[in-house]
């Protein structure tokens, strides 16, 4: 009988814990008009996604909405699990937050699914293709109270840049994870554009981190250079690929600033902090009531930045064309 008591007590404790969490939160939301409570649901622990979140809060701050002052942030991370993502979405919606920021496609879909009934606006970021994710219609208009920013890669600019840096290269290799919708759609775009810049595309699909090493060896034996997408699995294993590529003196191009920092030759790419800031400004408009989420089309970074790692260029014996070098937003390596 004692055990039964313990079980009952434990259950009671758990229910109270849940209720307590709920109670405290709903108070803070409805107190003052000038203070806001927002939820942030991030799909996984990941450098670029963390940068998005950091940028998002900075973007809000630039509009006078500062965490601690007039903003309460409930940040949750789904640890790359759809079931957990669903529970987070439901929990944020039941807390009746003023707005939810969703980072990465699965989170955006999950939050929107939960929030549409409750009329809570959703601002997403790091969603490569909002149209394919059914968060926006074909003209880029939001399907409901949901909008945000896309981290679509500037594929054409990247190819043009690679052509300028490596005038003789023929084969360009890309490694990607077959399960990442973002990568698959980027591969499609590469396929349709490589011919224009006289390249031949060699693609290598992987399923897990464990495949990276083998796939890299194979890919490096076939190509003149490698370019990266924003593929989570591949980016996480980038040091492995860079090691192998450096041995063979094959240049690896990145797709965002962080990748160039750790040793990619160059990138015509995205700065996720800037993307996050742009997203934060959109969210500020919604919170202040200046524009509804449904009135703002989703945005992309219009001008990609050129990043170059001059130390890597030197090691590989590649001279960066002067025009390009001058246009670099940021240059890493011996210069800094």
């Amino acid at each position, binding site marked *: 009988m004692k055990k039964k008591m313990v079980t009952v007590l434990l259950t009671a404790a758990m229910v109270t814990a849940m209720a307590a969490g709920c109670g405290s939160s709903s108070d803070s939301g409805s107190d003052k008009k000038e203070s806001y409570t927002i939820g942030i649901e991030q799909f996984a622990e990941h450098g670029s996604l963390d940068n998005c979140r950091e940028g998002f809060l900075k973007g809000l701050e630039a509009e006078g909405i500062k965490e601690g002052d007039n903003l309460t942030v409930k940040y949750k991370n789904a640890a790359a699990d759809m079931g957990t993502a669903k529970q987070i979405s439901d929990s944020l919606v039941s807390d009746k937050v003023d707005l939810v920021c969703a980072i990465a496609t699965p989170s955006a*879909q999950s939050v929107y699914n939960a929030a549409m009934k409750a009329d809570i606006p959703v601002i997403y970021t790091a969603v490569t293709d909002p149209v394919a994710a059914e968060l926006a219609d074909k003209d880029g208009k939001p399907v409901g109270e949901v909008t945000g920013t896309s981290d679509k890669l500037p594929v054409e600019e990247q190819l043009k840049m690679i052509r300028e840096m490596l005038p003789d290269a023929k084969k360009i290799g890309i490694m990607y994870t077959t399960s990442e919708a973002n990568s698959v759609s980027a591969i499609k775009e590469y396929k349709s554009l490589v011919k224009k810049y006289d390249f031949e595309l060699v693609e290598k699909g992987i399923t897990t981190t464990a495949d990276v090493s083998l796939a890299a060896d194979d890919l490096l034996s076939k190509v003149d250079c490698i370019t990266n997408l924003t593929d989570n699995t591949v980016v996480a294993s980038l040091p492995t690929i860079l090691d192998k590529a450096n041995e063979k003196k094959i240049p690896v191009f990145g797709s965002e600033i962080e990748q160039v920092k750790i040793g990619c030759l160059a990138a015509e790419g995205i700065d996720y902090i800037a993307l996050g800031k742009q997203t934060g400004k959109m969210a500020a408009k919604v919170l202040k009531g200046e524009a509804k989420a449904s009135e703002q089309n989703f945005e992309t970074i219009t001008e990609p930045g050129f990043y170059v790692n001059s130390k890597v260029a030197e090691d590989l014996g590649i001279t960066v064309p002067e025009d390009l070098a001058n246009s670099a937003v940021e240059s890493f390596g011996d210069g800094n």
Partner: protein
Amino acid sequence: MSFITSILEQGLIYGILALGIYITYKILDFPDLTVDGSFPLGAAITAALLTRGMNPYITLVLSFLAGAVAGICTGLIHVKCKVRDLLSGIIMMTALWTINLYIAGTANVPLFSQKTIFNNDLMEKIIPDVLAPYATLIIVLVLALICKVLLDLYLNTKSGFLLRAVGDNDVLVVSLAKDKGNIKILGLAISNGLVALAGCIFAQEERVFEISMGTGAMVIGLASVIIGTSIFRKMTLLHTTTAVLIGSVIYKACVAVALRNFDPQAMKLVTAVLFLVVLIISMDRKKKVNTNA
């Protein structure tokens, strides 16, 4: 109260998955990893059919059948090719990754604009406005109970008894002149059918198919089965199937508590500690039984 509704919804959907794992893990004593592939298989079939305009209720049946086929494959690999149980599950799980991608077309298929079992004209008519916030829960509850009752009925048929015998004492099955291999295959088929059905329901509730949704499904199901069966070990009046469903709800409640009250980084650790607490409580009870005996 909507967070409690959410826990119940999630718990019951994953409860159907746990019922499937209960068959393989508890009854057949077969650690079946096919689950990580058959859960998204149900979702992939659902996504492919719904986007082609299929009636959402028919997808429930077809998902179950697809899962059953996956289970039969695992069974055939194990029984006919004599591959070890764990490995045959891993082989099917790996193969299903690609199969799921082919079925769904891409890694992520949104279903926002499709009619689902939770959201269609029929449901809007049947469920009165007062109950509308609980509509999803009611539908999930009905589905979970149907699965449970059918499974209970099946386990009491002759075939069901044989299934239980294979796990407990397979010599008996052979002495009855029955092929234990075929019975294992049947068990795997039913189990993975239920798992795929859970995947189908989850995809319709979440309105998205995502290739990675199966990762860890096996672990969640296993934890639910163990929590459920050990807490309600002594309650003979309660069917084990009911205990498994409740176990799944408790699992989701643990996750919810961890999510709501702790730092996001600590979520997994807190969930783990909560499981441990639940299990230790139930283990004490087992000791008591032993000392009494």
